[in-house]
């Protein structure tokens, strides 16, 4: 990371976000009880499981194409909660993966869930499956399973791409309740069209906190709210600032570089309207390289200048 000019600023920004998160996690651990608003999609989970228990048909859980990252593991955490409930009722479950590493993590977690609930005998190791790491082979495989096993409830939570609708509609065609949520914004509309309940945006991340009420998670959820407010605040403040600067403060100097070391010198010029690149907000986000530049820095600099001209 480069610290020159305003470079430090983004580090500070990220640091503040992290502090918000940790502070609230600690607060929650200290036993401060915190509120979470109702999330429709999640209240439906028990209903869905109940239904499939009555029908004696399996509950399907799919994290889309999520890999071994934040999204995938979040999905698995939610699935663990669902599996716990399913284990109590002895409802059969199916979890399909497109990523081998995530699959292995999940298999262990789900096994633990069944053991901790004291239903180790009910755990079927083939319930957690790796289907294929090729997008549409995966879709074909899961769709086939949905139709063959006539699943009664489908939880489609994670990184969904084009394949989302194939599974959602297949599940709908066998009359399953679907609870879906995608971290891929372009897929959410299709899930909304095809599914009964949809987790929009980071309701997906709120889910595990909402379900488990685990202090750590609830705390971090509060931290996330603070962070979002911070972003909103920054945008508003800088927008006001930029508006005023642009409307009222004319640009009277031009910064150019001279000499072998390419030293920045600001020269007076006839007053003109500020370009975007003259505005403070732009400079905050695009730190300006320092004097005495190495060749690589010079290249970056030229690029930067060209950029600020358009």
């Amino acid at each position, binding site marked *: 990371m480069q610290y020159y000019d305003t470079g430090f600023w*983004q580090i500070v*920004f*990220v640091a503040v976000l*992290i502090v918000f998160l940790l502070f609230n996690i600690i607060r929650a651990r200290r036993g401060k009880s*915190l*509120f*979470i*608003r109702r*999330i429709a999609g999640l209240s439906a989970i028990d209903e869905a499981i109940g239904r499939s228990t009555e029908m004696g048909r399996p509950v399907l859980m799919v994290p889309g194409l999520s*890999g*071994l*990252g*934040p999204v995938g593991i979040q999905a698995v955490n939610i699935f663990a909660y669902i599996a716990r409930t399913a284990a109590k009722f002895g409802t059969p479950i199916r979890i399909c993966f497109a990523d081998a*590493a995530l699959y*292995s993590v999940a*298999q*262990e977690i789900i096994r633990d869930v069944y053991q901790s609930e004291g239903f180790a005998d009910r755990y079927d190791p083939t319930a957690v499956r790796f*289907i*294929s*790491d*090729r997008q549409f*082979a*995966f879709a*074909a*495989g899961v769709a*086939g399973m949905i*139709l*063959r096993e006539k699943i009664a409830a489908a939880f489609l939570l994670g990184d969904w791409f*084009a394949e989302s609708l194939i599974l959602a509609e297949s599940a709908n065609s066998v009359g399953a309740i679907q609870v879906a949520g995608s971290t891929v*914004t372009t897929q*959410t*509309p*299709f899930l*909304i069209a095809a599914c009964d309940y949809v987790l*929009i*945006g*980071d*309701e997906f991340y*709120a889910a595990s906190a*909402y379900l488990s009420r685990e202090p750590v998670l609830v705390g971090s*959820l*509060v931290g996330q*709210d603070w962070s979002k*407010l911070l*972003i*909103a605040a*920054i*945008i*508003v403040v*800088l*927008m006001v600032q*930029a*508006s005023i600067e*642009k*409307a009222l403060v004319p640009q009277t100097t031009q910064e150019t570089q001279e000499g072998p070391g390419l030293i920045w010198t600001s020269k007076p010029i006839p007053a003109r*309207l500020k*370009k975007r690149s003259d505005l403070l*907000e*732009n400079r905050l*986000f695009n730190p300006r390289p320092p004097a005495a530049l190495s060749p690589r820095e010079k290249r970056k600099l030229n690029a930067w200048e060209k950029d600020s001209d358009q």
Partner: protein
Amino acid sequence: MALTLDDPNYHFLKVTAGALATFGMYSVLYKETKIYRFFEHMFLGLAAGLSLTLLWTQTLYDLWWGPLVGRTADKATEYGQNGAWAWVLVLPLAALAYTIFSKKHNWMSRIPIGLLIGIGAGQAIQNWFNQYGPQIENSIKPAIPTVWSRFTVPDRNGLPQAALDNVNNNVYGSQAINNLIFLVTLLCVLSYFIFCTEFKSKLTKGMSTAGRLMLMVGFGAIFGTTVMTRFALLIDRMYFVWIEWLLESLPRMLHR
């Protein structure tokens, strides 16, 4: 063997296989039949085989085997490369992951997995600002007009460069209003994603409701644009079956 990959007979064979596969898969739209099941399993098999092949040819051979054994320069223009024996240590490390199948030692699988999780998390933190910083900056738009003489943006086409720059650099009344709308929308939607406070005041309640509606606008638009791609692909499939197979490839076969 003089036969080449673009030999018409072979080509016809290939296209026919493709056409059969198409109908076989489409049969699932009617109901899940044995035909679909056959093609589905073939697909899964081929995919697995392909992944295993690519595992070596596109990942391990370049990223692992190459560095491990190095190479002597084959092109006059470049140096050779020495082998780095330490790369072999990846094998036992990865092997730990496979202890997951053993009841006794499965905890060891968490070492490589944990490492990967850590790396993933670290990268996420590392890239966070690079990914979203520009988006934040991009949402900051001046909302006070710099020109009061006219409200709308003048017609851009046919303007000389200087005039064009001037137009682009100014903020017209209409733009200012749009930018305000942009900001308001952004804030409303953000407020919808606040989970840990109950909105009591009319304003905040209204904002989050409006936010949800704005989201629907966004989703509707996305739906509209995506439909094109999906339909285009269906049409292409049909073109493949009806035109390329039935009306072109088949007759060419028969006339030989």
